[in-house]
Every structure is written in structure tokens, then in C-alpha cells.
């Protein structure tokens, strides 16, 4: 190709991606920069009434956050959600994907739709249903546990059970989307490899470990990055189910940011939380990428 042609092609590329780039600039980069600036101000209800009451306070918002016990509580809760929730959801969606991908399963499209359905239903509606399922006295979950002789658990009322309760709900709600991604990846695993391994006498687990997982490595990474980001940004579920309670056991970092920003209208402090959250997600994702590179997944 001539140099001329290459320039033309580059120009066409820029032209075609410019609407998307403009949208990213306008709706992502600019607001992100604005909120970074906001995090160095003391924007509060006084500034809301009159912008003349706004002051630049440097790193004071960040400094106060580090002294705020509720911030650390929210941080711990979020890290717990990430640490427990990510493996749980990845495992759940991978097993669901393997189920609907397996050749012996009948009515596969029906299964796929059924398992994908939770993802596309309204969060608030499902939360109402789950509040019933998790009810201490009338809930299905406690009924099932009672069959095994487990005493009733106050899922949404006890500070120890509320986190698992939210996790179960979040897992059920989001695994469908990851399942579709995994399914697409599983269908690219060459059947010859699988059959060759079977002839070599590899069992189900050995084939999963040495054939399937290496083949879907990049997808596994993608899904875990998405899930980590999603877990860091957990908000709607605790907001609808528990309002951060009981005893602040389900206050996530985003919920804390919402309360700082929109309950107390300390937008400066809220923006500082948002920026710290951004750094956290960035750091975890970079670590994941590095690990993946080392293991050769990408």
C-alpha cells in the first residue's frame, strides 16, 4: 500500500472513531477531571446555595477521609465483597456456562434464556422478591435450611449474615451476563483437543484444568476484571435491600460516596471518595493484567 493510501486510511479511521472519542471526552474525561477538581474543594450545601461560598482546601478532604471510621468500614466491606464475591461469581457463571454448553443437555436455548433472565430483569423488582426469599420467618431460603436442621438466619437483620445475603443476590443477578461471555469462549475450544485428551485417559477435571481453562484464559481474565470492577461499584443492591444496615455492615464504598455526596451534600468529600475508588479499581486491574501476562493468558 502506498504512503498516500495509508494516510487516507488513518484519516478515515479517525473520522469514524471521532464521534465515539468526542462522546468519551465529553461524558467521561471532562466529568472525571471536573470531579478531580471538585475533590480539592469544600463544595457543600452552602456552596450549593451560593457558589461564592466555595473554597479550595487542597488535600483536606482526603485527609479527613482517612480519619473517618465509616470510610474505613466501607472500604473493608467493599474489599470483602471483592475478595469473596469475585471468585464466587466467576465460578458460578463458569459452571452455568459449562452446563448450557454441554452436549448432553436438552432444550439448551431454553436453559440459556432462563439463566440469562435474572440479568435483564429490573433490579428493584427482583430485590423485592429476594427480600421475601430471605425473610427470617417466611423465607424460602430459611425453609430449605430448616430441612437440613439449620436454625433460621436473620439474613438482612444480622450484621454477620447481611453481607453473604447481598452476595447471594448479586451473584444470582449478574452471573447470566458473564455466562454468555464464557459460553462464547467455550464454543471456541477445539473439540479435537478435548477428544484427544479423553482418548489419552484424562478425566473430567483434568480436561477442565489442562484443556478448557488454558483455552479460555483471556476470557477468564476479562470476566474477572469486569467482576472486580462491578464489585467495587456495588451500590444499588445494598441501597434497595438494606440501606447500608444493619450496623453499617453493607455500606459499600459507593454507598458511602452517595451518602457523602447526596445525603449530606458534601460533594467535595464525595468526589474525593470517587477518586480513591478510581485509583483502587485501576490498581487491582493493573495487578490482574500483570499476573495474566506472566501466566501467558494474553
Amino acid at each position, binding site marked *: 500500500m502506498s504512503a498516500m493510501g495509508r494516510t487516507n486510511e488513518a484519516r478515515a479511521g479517525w473520522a469514524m472513531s471521532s464521534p465515539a472519542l468526542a*462522546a468519551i471526552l465529553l461524558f467521561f474525561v471532562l466529568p472525571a477531571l471536573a470531579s478531580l477538581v471538585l475533590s480539592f474543594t469544600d463544595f457543600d450545601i*452552602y456552596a*450549593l446555595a*451560593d457558589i461564592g*461560598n466555595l473554597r479550595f482546601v487542597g488535600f483536606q478532604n482526603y485527609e479527613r477521609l482517612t480519619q473517618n471510621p465509616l470510610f474505613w468500614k466501607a472500604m473493608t466491606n467493599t474489599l470483602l465483597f471483592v475478595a469473596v464475591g469475585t471468585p464466587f461469581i466467576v465460578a458460578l457463571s463458569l459452571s452455568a456456562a459449562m452446563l448450557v454448553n454441554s452436549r448432553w443437555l436438552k432444550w439448551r436455548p431454553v436453559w440459556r434464556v432462563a439463566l440469562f433472565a435474572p440479568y435483564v430483569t429490573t433490579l428493584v423488582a427482583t430485590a423485592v422478591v429476594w427480600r421475601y426469599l430471605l425473610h427470617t420467618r417466611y423465607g424460602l431460603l430459611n425453609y430449605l435450611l430448616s430441612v437440613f436442621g439449620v436454625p433460621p438466619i436473620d439474613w438482612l*437483620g444480622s450484621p454477620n449474615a447481611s453481607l453473604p445475603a447481598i452476595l447471594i443476590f448479586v451473584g444470582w443477578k449478574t452471573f447470566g451476563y458473564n455466562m454468555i461471555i464464557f459460553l462464547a469462549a467455550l464454543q471456541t475450544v477445539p473439540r479435537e483437543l478435548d477428544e484427544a485428551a479423553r482418548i489419552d485417559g484424562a478425566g473430567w477435571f483434568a480436561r477442565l484444568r489442562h484443556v478448557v481453562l488454558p483455552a479460555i484464559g483471556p476470557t477468564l481474565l476479562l470476566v474477572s476484571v469486569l467482576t472486580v470492577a462491578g464489585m467495587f461499584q456495588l451500590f444499588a443492591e445494598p441501597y434497595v435491600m438494606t440501606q447500608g444496615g444493619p*450496623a453499617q455492615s453493607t455500606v459499600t464504598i459507593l454507598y458511602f460516596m452517595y451518602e457523602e455526596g*447526596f445525603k449530606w451534600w458534601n460533594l467535595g468529600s464525595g468526589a474525593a471518595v470517587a477518586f480513591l475508588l478510581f485509583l483502587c479499581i485501576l490498581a487491582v486491574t493493573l495487578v490482574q493484567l500483570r499476573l495474566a501476562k506472566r501466566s501467558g493468558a494474553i
Partner: protein
Amino acid sequence: MQLTRRQMTGALAAAPLLSMLGACGGRGDSGLTVWAMGNEAASLPDLLKDIDWPKGAPPISVQPLPWTAAHEKLLTGFAGGSLPSVGQVGNSWIAELAAIGAIMPVPAHAIALLRDQFGAVTDTNRIAGRSWGVPWYVDTRLQFYRKDLFARAGYAAPPADWAGWKVALHKVKKIAGDGNFALLYPLNEYEQLTTLALSSGARMLRDEGGRGAFSDPEFKAALAFYKSIFDEGLAPRVSMAQIANVWTEFGRGYFSLLLSGPWTIGDMKSRLAPELQAAWATAPNPGPDGIGSAAPGGSSLVVFAGRAHSDSDAAWDLVSRLMAPGAQLALHRATGDLPARRSVWDAAGLASDPAVAPFRTQLEHATALPKVPEWERIVTEMQIVAERMVLGQYSIDEAAKEIDARADRLLEKRRWMLDKGRAL
């Protein structure tokens, strides 16, 4: 981030919403919108049928808000310029809304609506020499106690002075038996300590609300009394989340006294076992020497600022019609709320209801809390320190000093505003 097909489809699907954006601009100029919460919002449409709203006046529409989201909604409404004409507002939010200029002071022609009301309640709404809302219904917190256990200890009612009150509680605890306590003061709630502080006459803030006054002797006395209740084993060191069911525990005698508001009367009637219905009663709070104080609560009707004259005239007309004795009585019948006007108490025969009558006494003895927008954050911090004091981390003096330090930090912006002459 890149635009995926999913997002494009979403954008297409959202396109019809664009037309709604246009509708945001002209917010119901032809009508009068009222924001109300909870039970009041549910019964308001019926109330409005009986207020003789003139034929030519703008039509009224009621928008209910849940209590849990009401505060955010009001501030977001102010930020977005979409507040309605009239609103029900919790009395403790008035200072904040007045400070940001979201509400109008009560005009001269409506000031008569504040007569025939409880002094402490109207005082709560008075900031910088002006009243900012008309109290609609009132409440306050006083003691609910087990009449039977107090009777067995030799008391018809809890004594009104702190010293005698504590002696009685020790006797009640003995009668309730091992493993039980005399009263429940949950460590995560600040109302108990603020009630004690108001009873001992503490002002809590000084310098026009610019600094904490928690090291005043009055507040320290309340703090010491609060601590002694736990140190002497009269109350369990627990937070509300650790009490699985307040009614069951109250019925069992785990505690015989708690501080709560008029909404608990209904709960007592519906949740306490039938055989215990004669065994509970209410009484005004104790004070250092005689009946103590309490913080007045309830909701006010406010008219939001920044509207045309004709609109705000109609809004005040609506407020005064809702405050008419007939409408007040109808509100009480529909919701059980305690009326703001004293004359309606008589008309409703509330003095003869033994569970409700002490509320009148308490409201006559109530004191307004400091009126600064930061107040809720300050008391939240106060309680965190008080809880640690009860658990032994701070002495009384250290706790008072720590609360002052935290309050001063929260009030830093207010002091700056006061210096500039910009704070109310």
C-alpha cells in the same frame, strides 16, 4: 470505553425520553404541587377534599415521598430547581433549608397560624428572628414503662427527679430478676443523651452555633448521669441491632423503660401481648430536679422560595386551610399524629387518653435543639464518642473535650460563613 451494540440499542431506546427533557423546564405552572411523606402523604388527598379550595384557584396535586429518601429529594430538588410549591418538612431540616435559601419565611399575613401552638416547636422553626415553617403535627420522646413492674417496686410512675428515678430503676431491676435490666438506652441512638442534656439545661453549641459547648458543666452533668446508668448496670451496653425484637424483650421484662415517641403507642397496642396491654404507660422525662425536657419533633408545612407572587399566595392559602382546626382534627383522626394546635388537643379529647396526655405535658416542657444545618452530623459524632465513653475508652472530661473537638471541626465552614456574615 467504546460504544457497544448494546449501548447503541440502549441509546436508541432512550431517544423517546428526549421529549421528556423538554417537559422538565415548565414544571406544572398551572397547578400547586405538594410534597408530603409517609402516612401524611397517604391521607392528604382525602384531607384536601374538605378544605373548601376555591373553584378558580390552581388545582392541587400531592406527590408522596418515602421518609427514607425525603431529605435527599429536597436537597436534590433545590439543586435542580424543581422544588414544588408547598412541602411537608421534618422540623429538624428547617435550619438547613433556610440556610440555603430554599424556603420562604412565614409572611406577616400567615403569622397567626403560629399562635395556639407549643412554644418549643415554633421556636425550632425560628431562625435569625424569623419563622420559616408552620408546625403541622408534633411529636417528642418520653418514657414508656412497665406499669406492673414499677408497681411491684412500689411506684405508681417513675419519679420525676434524676436521683429518685435512679433509685426506682434499681428496685425495678431487682424485681425483673437476674439477667434483666431496668431500661434500654441503645448505644447507637443519640436521642437519649440529647434528652438528658436538654433536661439538665445544656446549650450544646455556643457562639451563634459556631462552636461546641459540650464542656459546659450542664452537658458534663448529663454525660456523667448517662455513664452512671451503664456503670451501675441499669441498662445493657447494646445497640439497637443487637435487640432482635424490642416488643418481645419489653414484654419479657429484659428492660422496663425505654425512650420513644407517639408512634410507639400504636406499636405497643398491636405488638405487645394482649395480657400486657394494661401493663404499660407513658410518663414525662425526668430532670435533675423535677420534670425534664425533650426535643420537639414533628413536621412543618413550608412554602418553597423562588416562585411568583400569585403562586406563593395560593401556597400560603393552602397552608392556612390545612392548619384550620377542622383540618387538624381530620389529620389526627386519619394518621394518629398529635395536632400542632393546643385547641385541637382539647377538641380531640386527647387529654383523657392516659397514653397520650403525658405527651402534652412533655411538649410544654420541651426545648428546641440548636438550629444549625450541621446538627445531625454533630449529634452523630457525639453519640460515637459517648458510646466509646460507656465502653471505657474515655473519661467524662475526655469525652466532653473530644465531642467539642469533633463539633468544632464540623462547624469550621459555619464559622467562616459567620465571619463573612453569610450564615443565618
